[in-house]
């Protein structure tokens, strides 16, 4: 599976389990109030899921991501891309 697809499916799997809508989620969808509606706990939970599944997570490195695209970009950077062996 391509890395971006894998990141997307990790995010969508998380949203399903958290009973949040996955409809209409685009690159520029905001993660918090006016978008997916994550609060700090659900953002922390997403951060932990990303780390468990992909080996690293953008929430634990400097600025918190604000959009879905910022999460995808974090993994698109070769230094932080999920290891393909894990697919």
């Amino acid at each position: 599976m391509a890395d971006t697809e894998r990141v997307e499916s990790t995010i969508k799997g998380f949203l399903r389990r958290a009973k949040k809508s996955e409809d209409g989620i685009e690159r520029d969808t905001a993660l918090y109030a006016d978008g997916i509606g994550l609060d700090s706990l659900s953002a922390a939970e997403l951060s932990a899921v990303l780390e468990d599944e992909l080996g690293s997570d953008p929430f634990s490195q400097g600025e918190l991501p604000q959009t879905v695209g910022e999460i995808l970009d974090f993994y698109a950077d070769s230094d932080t891309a999920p290891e393909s062996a894990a697919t």
Partner: protein
Amino acid sequence: MNAPTADPEPAAHYDRVTDGWRLLFGDSLHYGVFDQGDEPLAVATQALTDRMIAAAAFEPGLRVLDIGCGTGDPACHLVRTQDVDVLGITTSRVGVDRASARAAADGLADRATFEVRDGTANELPDESFDRVWALESSHLMPARDALIAESARVLRPGGRLVLCDLIRRRDIPFKEVRDRRVDFATLREAFGEARMDPLDSYLALAEAQGLTIEVRTDLTEATLPTFDRWRANIAEHRDELVELLGADGLDAFERSTHILEGFWHDGTLGYALFAASKPA
């Protein structure tokens, strides 16, 4: 991830827990204020209601909006003791049914009425209430600015908003939320989705709506014994509570009492009350 087993959304959560919570909290679904420290929970929950009454400065005949009315105990008490008329609103249908039955049984149905409405978009007419009362419901309304704006909107000039609730007393860095996410998820499972804000942020929202702060009181110390009393109620009613909340639900609630007590002690969370008036 430790996903909650039940819907954390407030209306669904309250529909599910209302009956069990009566055994844990008593008729009033809120914390107690312990002036002595060893008084029974029912005395202390009444003492919190009394603090709100003092801050509200009621007069006979006033019209009161009770936002997040629970099962109607505070509203019926206000009608009886303050000679006011109360519209109680909640997003929980079960809450409205229980509260309406309670008012009817007490012979107060003409002065205490209850409707399903959202405190952050109440659709009630402008300037139609003399007092807005929000007893421990605001932490369940993410749109805190909308709650305060709606409260100010429905108040008549000279009216007063009185609110008490759990508050956050320090910033909780993201890393700490992440490290303690299991604890925070336990609180969400037991109490539904909630957000605690600093008292100052409530006061700023009220002032931004043109209200004047009349009363502000920190009740953190005074509410601390509440957790111990909830645990005593668990011990006393365990079998019935398992029946009503499920073993997992009750377990989450019991663990929550310890988590919250720790947050009270370490200055993370607490309890406060304020009143703010609308210029006449």
